[in-house]
């Protein structure tokens, strides 16, 4: 199990979701992925994508600049 990161800043939805989907497909069960985004749409969309595909959101943080979503991969 390892931690990975994805920079999805400046991308408008659904691109952050697509990048997340493609990255998660490369990872192993139990890995974690930290996605950094700027489009507020991801607050709904990445969790929705995770629910549909069975992955787990283990944290969401928001600061002045970025939204950071942490996902546990479940294949």
């Amino acid at each position, binding site marked *: 199990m390892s931690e990975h990161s994805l920079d999805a800043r400046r991308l*408008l939805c*659904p691109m952050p979701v697509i990048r997340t989907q493609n990255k998660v497909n490369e990872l192993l069960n139990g890995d974690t992925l930290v996605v950094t985004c700027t489009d507020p749409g991801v607050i709904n969309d990445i969790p*929705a*994508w995770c*629910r*549909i595909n069975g992955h787990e959101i283990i944290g969401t943080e928001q600061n002045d600049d970025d939204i950071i979503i942490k996902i546990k991969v479940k294949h």
Partner: protein
Amino acid sequence: MSKQYKAAALISGGLDSLLAAKVMLEQGIHVEGINFFTGFCVEGHTAAIRKKHQDKPKRNNALWSAEQLGIKLHIIDIVEEYKDVLINPKHGYGANMNPCLDCKIFMVKKAKQWIEENDFDFIITGEVMGQRPMSQRKEVMPVVVNESGAGDILLRPLCAKNLPKTRPEIEGWVDRDKLLAFHGRNRKPQMALAKEFGFEDYAAPAGGCCFLTDENYATKLVDLWQARSTRDYEMDDIMLLKIGRHLRPKPYFKLIIGREEGENKFMQGYSKLYSHIKTVSHAGPLCLIDGPADKADLEYAAQIVARYSQGKNQDAVTLSISRVGEEPYEVTVKPLTADEVKQEWHV
């Protein structure tokens, strides 16, 4: 034990594709959704950048549809391949820059490729005969079937009874009697079916799903092509066409001026790629410069930006100009008057 057949559903996020997939699920078909991202898809998120729309839902309707249906959704980036569809549409454009028929053919062709790679049996769409003036006319329904290469594995559950039988119907994978015969622009049958299925909060019926059908957006795209003397674009171009106020004071450069805090913040992400101007002495917008503006052009642009700042009625406004790869410098200018910002500059 009989085989469970598998269908890939083209999910746009609208009501029709939601219903078409549901009709198949009701027949025991295993359905997974495919949503193609062309770069021009209309979703709530562009609006979400702007603060004044923050009361509206910011969901992606394709994801929402999949969740309502309880199916997987595969979102596929076709931005690069889609360029040829938009730039060279065999069947031409609709009212604006929308190549709807070529788009539908392309998406069904991509779906066929996807089902072959993923061992699915057929494709379904939410098309309704006669509903859309370009891509869903009776005479073009077979054109999509033939030119996509999908042939008899393309099933349109909402209007299947108006069309020749497809392989899933002939082979008994689905029961044709339980398919529908919707036609025309009347949306009441879809709304009634949505009610029957318990869908209440679906995306606006017949709502456009593509920026290319939007006259203002299409105008900006054509302006971009004319200014660059080439019908091409990058992802950053088509994203920036969605936001800001666009003014072209000279043929070779334009200003993209943020209209509010949300847009300014989003555009800040492009500040390493584009020359940009920010007000210093007064509150004001961020402006990106698209095109080869020289120093004099940038100072003139600063006067325009000052017009959109809180110092617009002052004699002097100080702004910071940053050219790509260079140190920023400040200029103090007199804002243009409202009359000096020419109407024809607005793209």
